[in-house]
């Protein structure tokens, strides 16, 4: 009886996880712009893989395999969102915005429109500037040497 219940639960999580995998990969192909596609990809990372690993843990029972799978789940839940964040951060810093965004309310970071900046970024950029200047100098000197 217990075996049947565990089997049903694990198969349910396999099927739901596979559904999320399918939805995520379909979204990565079909959605409109980079940000929506990144959202679909992170669904695969968390919901799809998480549910499939949960199904495997139910099949494994109380054993060393389950402990290893739990560790995999833990590290995937740490690294997956971090990787998505790194990709999104790089795209945001390079000036990519959602395609139907009317007004740019996130004007802190992009360096292109200078007058609408807040105080914080001004000080940050002022603090950054001498470092950049020294870096440029050092790179010039190395180029001269080479």
């Amino acid at each position, binding site marked *: 009886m217990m075996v049947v219940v565990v089997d049903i639960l694990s198969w349910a999580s396999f099927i739901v996880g596979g559904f999320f995998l399918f939805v995520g990969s379909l979204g990565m192909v079909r959605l409109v712009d980079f940000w929506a596609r990144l959202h679909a990809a992170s669904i695969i990372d968390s919901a799809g893989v998480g549910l499939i690993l949960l199904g495997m843990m139910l099949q494994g029972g109380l054993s060393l395999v389950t402990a290893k799978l739990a560790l995999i789940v833990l*590290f995937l839940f740490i690294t997956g969102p971090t990787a998505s964040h790194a990709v999104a951060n790089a795209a945001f810093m390079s*000036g990519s915005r959602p395609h139907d965004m009317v007004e740019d309310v996130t004007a802190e970071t992009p360096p292109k429109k200078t007058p609408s900046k807040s105080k914080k970024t001004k000080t940050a950029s002022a603090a*950054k500037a001498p470092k950049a200047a020294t870096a440029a100098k050092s790179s010039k000197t190395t180029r001269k040497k080479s």
Partner: protein
Amino acid sequence: MDHHLILRVITKILVAPILLYGLYVQFHGDFGPGGGFQAGVIFAVGFILYGIVFGLRRLRQIFPDYVVHRLVALGVLIYAGTGIVNMALGGNFLDYNVLAEKGYQGQHWGIIAVELGVGVTVFGVMMAIFYSFAGRPPSLDDKEW
């Protein structure tokens, strides 16, 4: 690098488990899946992750170039030295049976020593490759993206 706060925090969390897992793969290599090659790469990945996020300069403070280059040679020295020791004890080259009184114990010790040599060399080569790629002057500044 001000906008990489999350990456820095996650890297600080992850570097220690990666190194621990590298050691596990290294010393588990004679019982199950694993061994020197994989352990060297995993161990190097921990440091390479640190170098990518915190900068090559701070990584070079931990492992200067000459240390990395000598690690590459040291691993080969451990590998070949194990074989020479076997020859000195009366066996063939890499004939582990002479290392201990019982043959299988000698094979155990010999394989651990050889895998350690392989791991050290692979670690050094991965770090050297990363240094030579990441040490080039950047073509784009962080702001110009």
